[in-house]
């Protein structure tokens, strides 16, 4: 695979940041800016999936779990902020006299909520990853296990309607850390925070990919045994990538709540987790921008194409997915390189050695 050009990538992030933080708020309507904020949240989670799956070879099919940790931590805090001293309205509805469940109480605190958004995914992914990677669980087994966790959590939330809002979810938030959410200026602020967090996540993985750890991660993906022979523990390498991806999913989830205004188990369950993966595969899982752009494209498709062709949009998505997997296994972001190569090979003789090397890089 051709060596990435770090400065090109960094200026790419710069352009992306300017587009998101400066241009978008000026040219988009409130509605589309809010939608873009939502896509940014999925993109943040997608950047993490790109790290774990694209670079680390771990097919994380249950990122909804970590998305949920961030989202529900935030939603619980905002619900309590809205309810003030009262028990949240939906709880009164199901059981008029019961008190606030104990696990809600600490989420009154802003500091605890912010810490929970960061620490809960880190701890859960840490424990889970340690147990799995040290035992050498990988491939399809890991994918199935992570997917099962997402299903289990969504079912748990659905069936604890009084404690978590169940299938209806948590909604109707009035304040965001003291700011009135209805105020258009505050909506723009919330969007800017999400967009800035996305840019920071991109910067973080850009740095990770260039570091020795990044090399080690790709090496672990491609030849785990050889990494072991060289004296590294591949389990630790994977663990770090997995924890980072969980953290990003949680941050995406946390910002999803004030932007969308509602969180339900449907947004974190199996289908939602797979849709996150679909965006990443679509954009190009191993590239820097691919996962984020892919996730945003899928989000946009859902709002826009889903409006025009409600019945056929899912088929369009499925078809696109199949086409991309079949013909562009490295996602849409590999299109320019592929195009350049075709032109090159049309001009000169084909260079099979490069093509094979690139394919090797794709395999995980």
């Amino acid at each position: 695979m051709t060596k990435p050009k770090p400065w090109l990538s960094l200026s790419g992030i710069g352009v992306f940041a300017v587009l998101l933080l400066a241009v978008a708020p000026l040219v988009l309507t409130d509605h589309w800016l809010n939608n873009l904020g939502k896509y940014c949240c999925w993109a943040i989670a997608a950047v993490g999936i790109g790290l774990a799956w694209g670079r680390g070879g771990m097919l994380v099919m249950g990122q909804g779990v970590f998305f949920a940790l961030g989202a529900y931590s935030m939603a619980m805090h905002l619900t309590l902020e809205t309810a003030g001293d009262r028990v949240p309205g939906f709880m009164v509805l199901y059981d008029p006299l019961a008190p606030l469940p104990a696990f809600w109480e600490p989420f009154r605190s802003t500091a605890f909520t912010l810490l929970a958004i960061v620490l809960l995914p880190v701890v859960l992914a840490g424990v889970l990853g340690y147990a799995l990677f040290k035992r050498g669980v990988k491939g399809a087994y890991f994918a199935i296990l992570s997917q099962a966790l997402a299903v289990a959590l969504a079912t748990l939330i659905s069936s604890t309607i009084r404690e978590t809002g169940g299938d209806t979810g948590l909604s109707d938030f009035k304040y965001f850390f003291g700011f009135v959410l209805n105020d258009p200026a505050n909506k723009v602020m919330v969007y800017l925070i999400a967009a800035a967090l996305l840019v920071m996540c991109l910067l973080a993985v850009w740095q990770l990919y260039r570091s020795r750890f990044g090399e080690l991660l790709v090496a672990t993906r491609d030849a785990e045994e050889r990494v072991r022979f060289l004296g590294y523990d591949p389990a630790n390498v994977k663990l770090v990538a997995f924890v980072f991806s969980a953290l990003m999913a949680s941050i995406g989830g946390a910002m999803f709540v004030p932007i969308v205004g509602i969180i339900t188990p449907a947004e974190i369950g199996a289908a939602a987790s797979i849709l996150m993966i679909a965006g990443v595969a679509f954009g190009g899982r191993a590239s820097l921008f691919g996962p984020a752009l892919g996730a945003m494209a899928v989000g946009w498709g859902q709002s826009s194409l889903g409006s025009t062709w409600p019945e056929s949009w899912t088929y369009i998505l499925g078809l696109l997915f199949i086409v991309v997997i079949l013909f562009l296994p490295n996602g849409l972001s590999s299109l320019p390189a592929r195009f350049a190569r075709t032109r090159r090979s049309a001009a000169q003789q084909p260079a099979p050695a490069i093509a094979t090397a690139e394919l090797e890089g794709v395999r995980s």
Partner: protein
Amino acid sequence: MSTTSKRRRALVATGAIATTITLALAGCGARAGDDTSGGGPTAAASCVDTSGSTVKLGFLNSLTGGMAISEKTVSNVLHMAADEINAGGGILGKKIEYVQEDGATDWPTFAEKTEKLLTQDCVAAIFGGWTSSSRKAVKPVVEKLNGLFFYPVQYEGLESSPNIYYTGATTNQQIIPAMDFLASKGVKKLFLAGSDYVFPRTANAIIKLYAAKLGIQIVGEEYVPLDKDDWTSQVAKIVAAKPDFVFNTINGSSNVGFIKAYYDAGLTPAKTPIISVSIAEEEAPAMGHEVTGNYASWNYFQSLKTPTNSKFIQSWKAYPNSSGVTSDPMEAAYISLYLYKSLVEAAGSFDVDAVNAAAKKNTITFDAPEGKVTLDGKNHHISKPGHIGRINADNQFDIVWASDAFIKPDPYLEGYDWFPADIRKQLVGAAG
């Protein structure tokens, strides 16, 4: 060394982003405690344009996903009502131009599409929704943008909003009549079976309170998630509990599984009948003869003999893609569009505040298929007749009980002394 300089630049970039966030935080709008009541600077200006010969309305129904089977019919009947109104000259002389959106049985999508309809399409009002979860997702958005939402399905009550009109029954128009009917039948032991979400949970909380007053004993209470249809183990509990009647608040296709398990367990309408609040003419055929003989509580039945109803049934049967039968939620959706027409014409304007002011006069009525309904301007619900129907062999309903008069809507059950005042106070407080 180049590595350190690269590191530093990454740091600078991160710093720049952090600064952006701080600036964003500093230069923003209202904080909690600021006075934002009365619209003020936070309420977005309405972009509704009625200067032309048309008025734009939004229809928001799940055309895909689990609820599509029910909501497509509502969408269809809204189209029929719009065609009828247009043929009669429109609303205030303006033809209805509708924008149909798909809620996709996904509550955040309902919220997103509501915002789109109000701010991008600039519709004057939105009609649709089915599940309480979808309504609860729409509510904060229409309140924020000062839009109008017409909700056509019976629900659990304990809600009212200046931006929502409810044309389905609240609890005192469906659940309480059903309980009165059970009491008149001498029922002593009742079993509650429902889907696990807002409506059944809340309805059952109310049923339990009223049952205590009526001297009816609740001998069991079971819930199954909306998307599951295996009721075998719950039905076994019903067999063991030996109730006189089962109160069914199950919704959607889960009912098919319940009725099948019930029938297979040897429970019969002759000994242990079921009263349902969600099986109507649309759903009954899917359960075939196994559901025959059981009861349902609704305000409207296809079998109601009113002149408006026969016209309604005739128009619906002739309408393209019609299912051929009429049902309560469909009729309520049909009412909602006509009610909006009356409201706008009474107000002489499409403006939301003018429409609400017109409603306040309590003079808005509509000669609906279920009878002449009157809008309550205070709580935005309508008066309705209570009816109990018994499912016959044609999967239609024979009406076996009717309320003495039209029942006034009472979403917070203020006229019922058995409903604890402190709970009502808490609920109203929590609803803000």
